[in-house]
């Protein structure tokens, strides 16, 4: 793309800023980063346009040059552009330095192997040292701002790669003592010093601090960059001002044991920084204090007294950052820096700042927050919760109490303080004064309710009233003297403005029973005593659906009966039905059935009618617990907000069957060879109680007649259940598998359906003995059977391997019920009936050491392979 005009660029940048992601996804996105770099060298564009291009690259490097390679190339290009600038004043040098730094850091390209890094770092350090870098780096007038900018770039690099400047501490100190710009050098030195200390402590390295701090003005030969230290630090970024509770472990400077000389040198460096700190802007002073405070905390041989001379000056100011920094020092050093008197003074200044008319509201609120999170020397309460510090007595708080004239946020913040005071007040004796904090609190809440009750008033004032009520309940839940008037007041507010019903429902959902219980009663009374037919009816029904329970049934039902006639549209009908649901859930019976029946007859809307009828049927047919579950929130999707969906899911949960993983284990017991047909003996175990269990079986391949279901009323884990008998009706004598499904009810009333693992039915499970052979002529009986098999059937001989137990054991274990003639231990004649009407006859004779030859006949040739498999498998199936 050729060079673009200023206007084109302005348009392009505008489009990019409007939505960077959309722009980058568009046709021009890909080229933007490249175009930007090349345009910076264009002679047609003004400097101002180029600065705006650089500004873009400062904000969106990740979009322009998304990977490390692109970022490295971009930084190189930016540095080239910088070098090629003509030696006259230019507004581009500063932004070019910033942009190159940003590109390297944001693109993850910064490192010892990056060529651009190796160019940028010495350049920055050279500029920061005020060295003459030749005419290419601008006229003398620009040196000072460039020096400051280079320091800022180095500070950013050190922030992102802690430890990088560990080798430059001495150099920086030297510069600070000479003519360098105070603020950038001070901040850079403080950060590098802090990072070095923390990294050395973490690595438990022997501090070479003195050496670092004393090193000459210029780095002695070679690279001053401490990539090794930066690598150690890189594992974890260094919080420059770690949050207080975490700070203890975070820094762990206690392990550093500097020698007395090192400690002295360190103290000198810190003192040097603090002494010139008044030359810094207030925000920079605050940064310096945060850095140094946490750098020295816990370090042996360092007393925080160094900070003392600064404190009085800082405490007097109106600057938010400075007071905040003093609080950080307070948290870092506690009693070591602040005596009890100092603590009291700090608290008073904070109290003043939290209400000073000259300060803006956001500052007031932040100071108030600081007051309630004040880092006390000897805190009493649990940490992490807002509480009034011990030294902040009622007298100090007087100016911090809320009034109706305050902005909502200020009112809530101050109300919180008032609640804390009331909570303390309760512990003391009531002092008999007319205007106790509690009395004042009541008046205030009444005022808020009056405002919320105003017809046509903004939603915000209603919200404020409920937020205040919620805060009070949170803080003073145990004080009936507060809650009773609050309950009555809220009930009156509802009477005045039923349109606030959603706020009431929200409040009831969030407060504990201390307010919830009495407020429910009050609201129910409020609603049922005022039958409405107008707009308010909708809200009344919404409230009732929340508060209706088993109490005051007749009044509630009376109200609903009267209201039903006015529920002409679908929405109102559904609202009324929601109340019915709530009553159903609460176990309200008789009167409700009448009401539901009336609704089912009376309403014209089919949906409303159907629902009423459904509820009636549920009420008539389901027992209490089941009904409760049917109407309760569904365990499957409790989060859905729509009541209709929730309702449907409630039904789905109960009236439809839930698919569930089986808590039931089924196994086949020993074979019972008796009776007219084969019967499977099933053992059932459950992992959780199951009621009304129904087991349904399906035969694979339809080789048996369909099987009937088996019912068990109740099963409990660990309680043995007698075996279940499942009669089989084979259509062919063949093994198969049974597909098993279980249907049962859980203790919570849900009906569940589970698919169990299939049950195998073995060939031997079908074996039945022949009816008793005539006594005395068993052999004749057998021979008769034997002969009858042929010619229709089949004959075979096979070798049945024997295990070590021998033939006798084998027969007694597997074939005992079917033996017709036995001549132990050598010969057995076995006759097996196979339903529906097949037979299998075996002659086991002349057993040898390791097996027995078996002659077998059957009248069903299809049985032959099954019998063969069975016999061969016998010895294995011990």
């Amino acid at each position: 793309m050729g060079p673009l005009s200023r206007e084109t660029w302005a348009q392009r940048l505008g489009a990019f800023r409007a939505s960077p992601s959309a722009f980058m996804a568009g046709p021009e996105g890909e080229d933007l980063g490249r175009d930007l770099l090349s345009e910076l060298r264009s002679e047609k564009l003004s400097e101002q346009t180029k600065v705006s291009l650089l500004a873009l690259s400062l904000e969106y490097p990740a979009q322009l040059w998304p990977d490390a390679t692109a970022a490295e190339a971009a930084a190189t290009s930016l540095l080239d552009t910088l070098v090629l600038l003509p030696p006259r004043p230019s507004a581009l040098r500063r932004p070019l330095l910033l942009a190159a730094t940003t590109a390297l850091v944001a693109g993850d390209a910064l490192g010892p192997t990056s060529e651009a890094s190796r160019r940028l770092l010495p350049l920055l350090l050279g500029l920061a040292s005020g060295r003459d870098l030749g005419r290419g780096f601008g006229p003398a007038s620009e040196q000072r701002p460039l020096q400051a900018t280079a320091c800022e770039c180095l500070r950013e690099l050190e922030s992102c790669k802690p430890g990088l400047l560990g080798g430059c501490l001495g150099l920086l100190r030297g510069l600070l003592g000479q003519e360098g710009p105070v603020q950038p050098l001070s901040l850079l030195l403080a950060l590098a010093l802090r990072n070095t200390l923390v990294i050395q402590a973490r690595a438990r390295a022997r501090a070479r601090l003195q050496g670092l701090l004393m090193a000459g003005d210029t780095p002695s030969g070679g690279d001053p960059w401490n990539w090794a230290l930066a690598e150690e630090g890189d594992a974890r970024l260094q919080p420059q001002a770690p949050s207080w509770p975490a700070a203890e472990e975070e820094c762990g400077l206690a392990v550093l044991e500097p020698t007395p000389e090192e400690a002295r040198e360190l103290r000198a460096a810190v003192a040097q920084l603090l002494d010139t700190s008044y030359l810094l802007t207030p925000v920079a002073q605050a940064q310096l204090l945060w850095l140094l405070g946490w750098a020295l905390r816990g370090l042996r041989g360092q007393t925080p007294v160094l900070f003392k001379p600064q404190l009085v000056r800082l405490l007097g100011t109106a600057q938010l950052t400075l007071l905040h920094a003093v609080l950080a020092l307070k948290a870092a050093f506690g009693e070591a820096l602040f005596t009890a008197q100092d603590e009291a003074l700090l608290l008073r200044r904070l109290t003043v700042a939290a209400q000073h008319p000259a300060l803006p509201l956001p500052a007031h609120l932040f100071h108030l927050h600081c007051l309630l999170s004040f880092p006390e020397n000897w805190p009493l309460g649990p940490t992490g919760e807002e509480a009034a510090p011990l030294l902040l007595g009622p007298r100090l708080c007087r100016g911090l109490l809320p009034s109706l004239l305050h902005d909502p946020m200020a009112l809530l913040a101050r109300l919180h303080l008032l609640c804390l005071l009331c909570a303390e007040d309760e512990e003391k004796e009531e002092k008999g004064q007319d205007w106790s904090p509690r009395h004042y609190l009541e008046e205030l809440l009444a005022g808020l309710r009056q405002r919320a009750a105003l017809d046509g008033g903004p939603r915000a004032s209603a919200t404020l009233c409920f937020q205040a009520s919620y805060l009070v309940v949170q803080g003073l839940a145990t004080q009936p003297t507060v809650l009773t008037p609050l309950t009555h007041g809220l009930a009156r507010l509802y009477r005045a403005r039923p349109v606030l019903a959603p706020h009431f429902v929200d409040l009831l959902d969030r407060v504990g029973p201390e307010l919830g219980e009495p407020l429910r009663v009050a609201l129910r009374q409020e609603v049922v005593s005022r039958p409405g037919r107008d707009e308010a009816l909708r809200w009344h029904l919404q409230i009732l659906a929340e508060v209706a329970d088993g109490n005051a049934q007749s009044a509630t039902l009376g109200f609903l009966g009267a209201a039903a006639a006015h529920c002409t549209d679908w929405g109102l009908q559904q609202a009324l039905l929601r109340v019915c649901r709530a009553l159903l859930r609460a176990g309200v019976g008789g009167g409700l059935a009448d009401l539901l029946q009336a609704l089912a007859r009376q309403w014209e809307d089919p949906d409303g009618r159907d629902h009423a009828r459904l509820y009636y049927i549920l009420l008539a047919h389901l027992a209490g617990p089941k009904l409760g579950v049917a109407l309760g929130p569904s365990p499957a999707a409790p989060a859905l907000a729509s009541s209709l969906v929730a309702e449907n899911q409630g039904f789905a949960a109960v009236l439809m069957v839930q698919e569930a993983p089986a808590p039931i284990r089924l196994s086949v017991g020993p074979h019972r060879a008796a009776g007219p047909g084969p019967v499977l003996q099933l053992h059932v175990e459950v992992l959780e109680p199951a009621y009304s269990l129904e087991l349904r079986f399906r035969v694979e391949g339809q080789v048996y007649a369909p099987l009937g279901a088996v019912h068990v009323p109740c099963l409990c884990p660990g309680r043995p259940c007698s075996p279940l008998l499942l009669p089989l009706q084979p259509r062919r004598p063949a093994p198969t598998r049974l597909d098993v499904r279980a249907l049962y009810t859980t203790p919570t009333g849900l009906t569940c359906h589970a698919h169990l693992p299939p049950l195998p039915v073995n060939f031997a499970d079908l074996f039945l003995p022949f009816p008793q052979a005539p006594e005395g002529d068993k052999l004749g009986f057998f021979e008769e059977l034997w002969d009858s098999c042929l010619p229709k059937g089949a004959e075979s001989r096979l070798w049945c391997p024997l295990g070590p137990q021998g033939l006798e054991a084998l027969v007694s274990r597997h074939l005992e019920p079917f033996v017709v003639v036995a001549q132990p231990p050598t010969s057995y004649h076995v006759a097996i009936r196979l339903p529906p009407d097949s037979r299998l006859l075996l002659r086991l004779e002349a057993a040898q050491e390791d097996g027995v030859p078996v002659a077998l006949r059957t009248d069903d040739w299809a049985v032959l392979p099954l019998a063969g498999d069975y016999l061969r498998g016998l010895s294995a199936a011990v």
Partner: protein
Amino acid sequence: MAQRAVWLISREPGTPFCGTVRFSRRYPTVEKRAKVFNGASYVPIPEDGPFLKALLFELRLLDDDEDFIESRDSCSHINKTSVYGLLIGGGELWPVVAFLKNNMIYACVPLVEQTLSPHPPLISISGISQGFELLFGVQDFLSLSQKNDTELNTKLNQLPDLLLQACPFGTLLDANLQNSLDSINFASVTHSQKQPAWKVGTYKGKPQVSISITEKVKSMQYDKQDIADTWQVVGTVTCKCDLEGIMPNVTISLSLPTNGSPLQDILVHPCVTSLDSAILTSSSIDAMDDSAFSGPYKFPLTPPLESFNLCYYTSQVPVPPILGFYQMKEEEIQVKITVNLKLHESVKNNFEFCEAHIPFYNRGPITHVEYKVSFGQLEVFREKSSLVWIIGQKFPKSMEINLSGTVTFGAKSHEKQSFDEICIGGTAYLKLHFRILDYTLTGCYADQHSVQVFASGKPKISTHRKLISSDYYIWNSKAPAPVSYGSLLL
């Protein structure tokens, strides 16, 4: 300490988005650190569009106040500071420091150097106060001598360059943006060793020091037995020191006459180099007694180039300058009012102006007024439903003036008449507006001899004083009125 992003959003009710992002600036290197520090709780800085929407929703500045929305209106969704969490793209962007001032929303997101869940306490996050200071700085810059939209646009256009100077990498270097603007222009000046960062150049010219004391008096008067009237003076001392040299030392003293009211709650400018502990500890929290420190209040300082607020103070004067009562009774569509105002004899009876504004809220337009005033004139603003009693430059010799009358209202129409949440029913007030030049209520003054300058040349010293009213309310004594806790402790 760093900021991840900054926004300026102008509020435009009635437009589709209800606002426009006028300026935004992101800091990708800080964002990089946020990602590491916040870990799993990291939520990236959104694009301007989604941010605008989420912020306006949270601040209740969208035009959809009609319905109850749980995520905004729930009673447990309580903000006690100007720090918010915004729901954006399934995550919560926190902490967002934001406030609305003169239809402009100032917002930034400070870096938190740890995980965000659970939220660490705000007091432990250094970036919060730095963020506030940045936003206050931008706000000061925009509001400084800004008169119209064109000037606002000019200043907004300067912001990118200024932040490049004052906050190049997201860590604020100077909250005084005017200073940064000057430093761009001062770039050619050679600096010497001890140049403070808050002073970008040196003054050349005739030495002069100007000190002006402005006191604002506010009051709540009820004219009731069981509720105490309250009043308070808030003073601001503004200085401009045009002195040669890099670090000229100046000491400015404020003095009180023998019967003056002690200054309390003194907050000083950071250029003040040391403070007497008596100044630090004199506070309105304590009960007043005769031993209270009553000056002179000495402030040794090294002044910056620009005009600055040397200090703020409050004071409790023994009596309010004007004591009055206001009685209003409703009688169907009209109200009867009686007003009495009395100027205290100790107060300088020479006003630049003095007016009593009597608004009638939540009522229809004024259709008819019958009145009698003992002094001054009454102006009637029918559509605004308010009366303005113009008292003029002086109270009469008796120091006491009266107004009585009957005001009749027409039917209320919702669009035109202003709605007020406080003035419901008989609850009503009148508000006094006045200004007295060359006078302070506390008596506080700075004279030529009270200024010591340790610099070459004897400077010309000029001093100014004025008293103005601010939130000076007299409530209808015939109806309930909002009170603060202090009013109840008789």
